[in-house]
């Protein structure tokens, strides 16, 4: 492990930066808009764009059952990421673009590559496409990195990382980054998966654990009987005692399905630990809303009145009614689906907040109606 320079967040000033400034001038905007520039530029080089981040697939490697890593090399517009952050990956499937959010699993690298580790979900349109069709040399689009789920700065003396399933990716990026930067922090790293075949990065974690005395790796299997030395069943207080009796003193980071984060939070509260785990659940609590009384939805631009259900995201209901609103992440982060609500009350499914202001902009994917709602769609 060699001490590294801090290359990770410094924005890379690409050759298009002066060009960007030039094109941002009002006079240039009249001559050439971004799409026009990108059109002609892409004839010279498929990755040459003004602002859009286009990344070339450099390598593809299997990581576990139904889990594959894609090593991507973005163009100069990419400004780097901090371990733990997300990017939105956009691919075109049968003429339509689809975006999904992933956390890079690699440490930010000097070569600027981004590794996305993708688990294939049954029936998952994008993950299925990535696994079956994406090939080395293909070009995909990325967003800039975003999100606050990052290591505290300065790095705490003791860390506990708990990863459920493919939730390992941001935590793996943090761990790899710590080790690459030679930061000698005491890390307890637990990775849970359904079976042994579903454990991601298992070989590398074992190897790293052997090389770094301050890194303590635990594996947990929830759907099979565990081997000696492994954790059996879902994450519990018993597991916590076994791997980190000093959990109260540790800065804890949790990433996995919603249930894992709920369990951890409940456990921390029950034990009265001062600092709750920092967590990220990749299935926001959308399914937990069970109230489904019938309400009326009006889409003014489309002249459509339909019967809707309270508690169900408006994006889903609009699509169900045959509309095609813009959408992106479908988890309330990209704001692609921002839409003017003309009347009615909606509940923010992430925060539980209910707002009834007329003419307010809401994000359709995380807003569920709690009354009749009229949308400018």
């Amino acid at each position: 492990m060699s001490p590294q320079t801090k290359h990770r967040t410094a924005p890379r000033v690409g050759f298009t930066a002066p060009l960007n400034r030039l094109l941002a001038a009002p006079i240039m905007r009249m001559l050439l808009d971004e799409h026009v520039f990108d059109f002609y530029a892409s004839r010279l080089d498929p990755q040459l764009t003004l602002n859009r981040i286009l990344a070339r697939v450099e390598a593809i490697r299997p990581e576990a059952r139904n889990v594959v890593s894609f090593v991507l090399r973005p163009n100069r517009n990419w400004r780097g990421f901090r371990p733990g952050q997300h990017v939105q990956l956009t691919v075109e499937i049968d003429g339509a673009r689809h975006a999904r959010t992933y956390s890079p699993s690699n440490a930010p690298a000097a070569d600027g590559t981004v590794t996305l580790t993708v688990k294939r979900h049954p029936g998952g349109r994008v993950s299925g496409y990535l696994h079956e069709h994406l090939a080395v040399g293909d070009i995909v689009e990325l967003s800039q990195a975003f999100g606050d789920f990052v290591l505290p700065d300065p790095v705490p003396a003791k860390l506990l990382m708990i990863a459920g399933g493919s939730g390992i990716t941001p935590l793996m990026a943090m761990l790899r980054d710590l080790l690459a930067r030679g930061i000698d922090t005491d890390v307890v790293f637990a990775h849970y998966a359904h079976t042994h075949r579903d454990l991601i990065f298992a070989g590398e974690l074992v190897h790293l654990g052997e090389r770094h005395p301050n890194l303590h790796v635990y594996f947990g299997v929830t759907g099979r009987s565990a081997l000696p030395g492994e954790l059996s069943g879902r994450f519990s207080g018993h597991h916590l005692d076994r791997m980190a009796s000093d959990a109260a003193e540790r800065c804890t980071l949790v990433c996995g399905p919603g249930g894992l984060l709920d369990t951890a939070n409940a456990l921390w509260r029950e034990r009265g630990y001062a600092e709750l785990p920092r967590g990220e659940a990749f299935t926001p609590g959308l399914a937990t809303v069970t109230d489904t009384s019938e309400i009326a939805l009006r889409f003014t631009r489309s002249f459509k009145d339909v019967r809707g259900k309270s508690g169900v995201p408006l994006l889903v209901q609009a699509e169900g009614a045959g509309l095609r609103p813009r959408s992106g992440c479908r988890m309330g982060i990209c704001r692609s689906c921002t839409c003017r609500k003309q009347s009615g009350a909606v509940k923010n499914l992430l925060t539980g907040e209910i707002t009834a202001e007329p003419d307010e902009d809401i994000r359709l994917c995380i807003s569920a109606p709690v009354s009749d709602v009229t949308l400018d769609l």
Partner: protein
Amino acid sequence: MTSSQARPLTREEVAAFGAELDELRSRIVADLGENDARYVRRIRDAVRWSELGGRALLFAGILPPAWALGTLLLGLSKILENMELGHNVMHGQYDWMQDPEFHSQTYDWDNACSAIAWRHSHNYVHHTFTNVVGRDRDVGYGFLRLFPEQPWHPAYLLQPAASLLLALGFQWGVALHDLELERVLRGEKSVEQLRRELKPVLRKARRQLLKDYAIFPLLAGPFFVPVMAGNLGANLIRNVWAFIIIFCGHFTERVETFPESVLESETRGEWYLRQLKASSNLDGGRLFHILSGNLSHQIEHHLFPDVPANRYAEMAVEVKRIAAEYGQHYNTGSFARQFAAAMKRIVRYALPNVAPVRRAVDILVEHVGRLHGVEALRA
């Protein structure tokens, strides 16, 4: 209102008629995919290369053939961009691609009318209230009298000349359209509101004027004048063509207009029926359809304004069959015939609705028709 030549339908028949069109729509929408995305990108490619070619030729515009060719190519590029790309994209026909380059909410066209004003006056007002006199402001654009239902006024005597000016400056007519100047004149709309709405209109207008009449000519250095003249020529070509195509879509011989009362509790089937009766198609080949922005399939466009235009040709076969099945007139004809009919309206309704005038115009039109041997004029 304009008498209907179609068989009156019962409520049940109207519902069944609407259901058949809904079914057609669903079938096409479910089938949208890679081919449609490829189509709109090919149109985009043609727009970009023809613009580049046109402007490059104009930069060599000191040579007359290069100037003429450049003007023509740039005009063609603007036609393609406004009509087959911009108009259709701004309708949301390609929103399903989720590509910001082809999305109705982000696209802005090479036209003096801003995208936002256009989406309001066209996508919303015109496409919802199509040919409802008093509601659809495209019926005469607030200053032309094209149907007997519109009350006559002596000022309409000037409309043949006004139409010619509109044709030449069509993009400016469209840009001003959403401001509803006639309502300001009638005192129905405050000057204050007009001033507020004028701001974005002026911003877009300035951008368009600077682009074609200052920046590109300046870039050409010593060839300032030929480039500016070429750009003007290209804009004129686009204006006149757009005017012609659009007048052929709603102002032909047998299109119908409607009183506001039809809007009360209008069903989906009735809306479809009104769109069919209010629109007219143009026969032609594939290239003609593309250059008209597929507005040659005006009927299909009005029935399915947000279905990709490249599908209208195949939908037209079905729509024609459904219209026949329900005894409805499917208004289509040759370009010459439909255009002559629209021009006839401009002359005819400049004059008041009195029998001698009507007869005089008919005789005159017949005479002109015989002189030019255009059978269509007598249609």
